């Protein structure tokens, strides 16, 4: 049995009320959209999604990580390997980035399923993450939302077994962004929907169902990720499904159109409450379409993924539209900062990115950063490498308004990590009262600052 073993969704904590966009530009969009913070991007959200999917410690045996996104922070430099390093996967794995359209996540999923199916991979992580930027004031701006999702594909403990997969591919200019454009461009949406979406998605779904010899009426849930949510019901009908009873509701109102992450988020939502043997179809559009038929297993009952509603809970409102613009870099902000020299980055990769400290073999003290002489007993040269946990308790803190960082007030937090070690990090995603002595926090990989034409990523803490 090949399929999805674990699934996790991540939504940035910030919520932009669409009324704020309407206030700036006119228009009557309602609801909220998820918004990546100023220190988040598709890479960092991808790391969070991996944690949501497999927890903080990767199980042994993961031998591939595929990253799908249209908004990767690098056009040249592999993001999959950066995610794999941050979650401390071993070096001997296959990594690849998928890009080009919001089908990137499903392309990565297909590659993972094929790799495991062919026996060339044991277990593959699929990470789909998007933080797409729409033109300020444009029609897409209130629609987009930021999210990431991850799926572990393997042959063991499968919760959603792969039945069939099918794709169609066709050149069509609907959404695009050239290498010189910053904002996602959109053509005539009505035309794009009618002559591309409504053809490609039902065709792919139909092909997958035919291969499975499964009538549409036997599908428990149909999850379709579409650029225009109004098109979902029509797609469902064309595929032979009942939009009222079979279509998984989109997250448009509370989160937005989620790009590459959306198919996996909707799949997770589709699996909620299913019984073993129930069929789920997940499909997504992007100059063609991909569709997959999965069958829920008994393992789903034992290990259901965290619900999407749970992952969406606890949002904090963004105070203004201007803060959204600043978070996305539309309003520039130069707070300075020195780039980590490549040499130091290489030397300290295990300490700074993989998050290893030291443990003293003389007294047992776990400590960070890595030390030659123990901080506690001062024994010389008795330390060994020690992987740190990513959860802990606030030992002390301050809420700083002076430090040179993009957003104030900013917590600076000293954390006692579970399993030992003390670390001192910036706080992020905090509401009033989230940081106090004794509060539980979690480490999160974020973009610390940029300088010298490149970016520094490092760990911060957020409320647990």
């Amino acid at each position: 049995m090949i399929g999805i073993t674990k699934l996790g969704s991540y939504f940035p904590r910030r919520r932009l009320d669409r009324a704020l966009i309407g206030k700036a530009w006119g228009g009557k969009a309602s609801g909220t959209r998820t918004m990546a913070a100023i220190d988040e991007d598709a890479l960092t959200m991808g790391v969070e999604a991996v944690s949501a999917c497999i927890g903080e410690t990767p199980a042994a045996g993961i031998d591939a990580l595929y990253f799908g996104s249209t908004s990767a922070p690098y056009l040249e430099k592999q993001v999959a390997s950066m995610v794999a390093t941050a979650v401390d996967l071993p070096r001997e794995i296959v990594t690849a980035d998928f890009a080009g359209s919001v089908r990137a996540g499903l392309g990565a999923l297909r590659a993972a399923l094929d790799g495991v199916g062919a026996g060339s991979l044991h277990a593959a992580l699929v990470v789909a993450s998007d933080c797409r930027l729409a033109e300020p004031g444009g029609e897409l701006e209130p629609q987009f939302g930021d999210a990431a999702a991850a799926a572990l594909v393997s042959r063991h403990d499968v919760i959603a077994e792969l039945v069939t997969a099918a794709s169609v591919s066709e050149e069509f200019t609907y959404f695009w962004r050239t290498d010189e454009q910053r904002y996602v461009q959109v053509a005539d949406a009505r035309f794009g929907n009618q002559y591309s979406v409504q053809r490609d998605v039902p065709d792919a779904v139909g092909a997958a169902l035919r291969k499975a010899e499964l009538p549409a009426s036997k599908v428990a849930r149909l999850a379709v990720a579409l650029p225009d949510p109004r098109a979902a019901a029509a797609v469902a009908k064309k595929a032979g499904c009942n939009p009222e009873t079979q279509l998984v509701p989109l997250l448009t109102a509370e989160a937005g159109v989620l790009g590459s992450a959306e198919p996996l988020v909707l799949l997770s939502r589709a699996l909620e409450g299913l019984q073993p043997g129930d069929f789920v179809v997940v499909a997504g559009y992007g100059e063609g379409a991909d569709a997959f038929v999965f069958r829920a297993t008994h393992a789903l009952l034992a290990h259901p993924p965290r619900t999407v509603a749970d992952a969406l809970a606890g949002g904090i409102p963004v105070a203004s539209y201007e803060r959204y613009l600043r978070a996305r870099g539309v309003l520039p902000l130069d707070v300075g900062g020195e780039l980590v020299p490549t040499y130091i980055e290489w030397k300290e990769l295990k300490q700074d990115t993989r998050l290893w400290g030291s443990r003293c073999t003389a007294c047992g003290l776990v400590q960070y950063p890595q030390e030659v002489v123990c901080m506690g007993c001062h024994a010389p040269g008795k330390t060994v490498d020690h992987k740190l946990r990513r959860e802990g308790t606030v030992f002390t803190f301050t809420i700083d308004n002076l430090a040179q960082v993009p957003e104030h007030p900013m917590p600076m937090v000293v954390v006692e990590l579970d399993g030992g070690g003390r670390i001192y990090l910036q706080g992020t995603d905090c509401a009033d009262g989230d940081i106090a002595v004794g509060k539980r926090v979690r480490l999160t990989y974020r973009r610390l600052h940029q300088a010298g034409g490149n970016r520094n990523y490092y760990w911060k803490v957020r409320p647990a």
Partner: protein
Amino acid sequence: MKDKVAVIGVGCTKFGERYDRGYEELICDAAFAAYEDAGIDPAAIEAAYFGTYMPGPHGGKSAVSLADALKLYGRPITRVENYCATGTDAFRNACITVASGVYDVVLVVGAEKLKDRGGRGLPRFGHPLLARGNSAPGLFALGANRYMHTFGCGRETLAKVAVKNHWNGARNDKAHLRQEITVEQVLKAPMIASPFGLFDCCPTTDGAAAAIVCRPELAKQWKKAPIWVKGAALAVETGRPFFDPTFDYLGFRSTVKAAKAAYDMAGCGPSDISFADVHDCFTWTEISNIEDLGFYEKGQGWKAVEAGETALGGRIPINTSGGLKSFGHPIGASGVRMIYECVTQLRGECGERQVKNARLGMAHNVGGPGAVACVVILGNG
């Protein structure tokens, strides 16, 4: 060390936003005042120690600014740079040089023009990722919040430190901030790094101070009666306390260890000290210091502040100068400025701020926070 070094002259510029005087001019102002105070010909200076954290416009990371300002050429001059203990450590090095018998008369100058570097405190050094995002108030605030959590004291108590030090500083014409303030003003001021509001923080200040030390055999030939160095000790602890799992964040080990060493040299204890200028970069730091220096048990210092025991006329007057809080804190100058306060108090020259029957005075710096601490004990007998 005890009684092997005499302080024969001290000088201090007006502290504040000294846009009117250049870095080397401030050095001259402080040194000339010390020459005058001692009645000494600069030609008699055999060596010098120069405490400065950030180099001046011409000096670079060397001692040449002092040589160029004063034209003290052809002599050994060493620049000392040790976080906020820079000034007291420069003084300590001068004392060691004299006590060792290598030189007879040594000048110490501490100088800093922080305002020439913009208005927002100190520039940041250090690792581009680790501990990134810290600020000076934010680093000390980690201790303050842990202390307040542990011992139950509130921001009002911290505010009383500021009120007391401003009261002293208002009576000191060389101090930077000379207005008296109220607890309410402190509590209502904008937050800088919780629990510190604006008035919990020392200002960003320009200034310079100087002292001249000599061998005991030569101490009586100058204008004023000598003040004796009883002890001068430095202790260095971790510069990354926030990563140390064994650190309780309730005070600073460097101060405890430097104080013990200084008391041992001086053959005295905390109860023998008449007054102390301690490192009140932030209000809580003063509370921590008076415990770490042994004047109060750990966790009791805030009660002493509440009881007024650290005010002028109290059990142990702390920061009669106004402290860093009111007098200002030009990093390298501060420690030497504290020596200036101790010497003038021990001579009985402090007028309205004079500590009665002052016998032993202490100067204390802690920086890092907690990475370095220097304690100097001076006496008039």
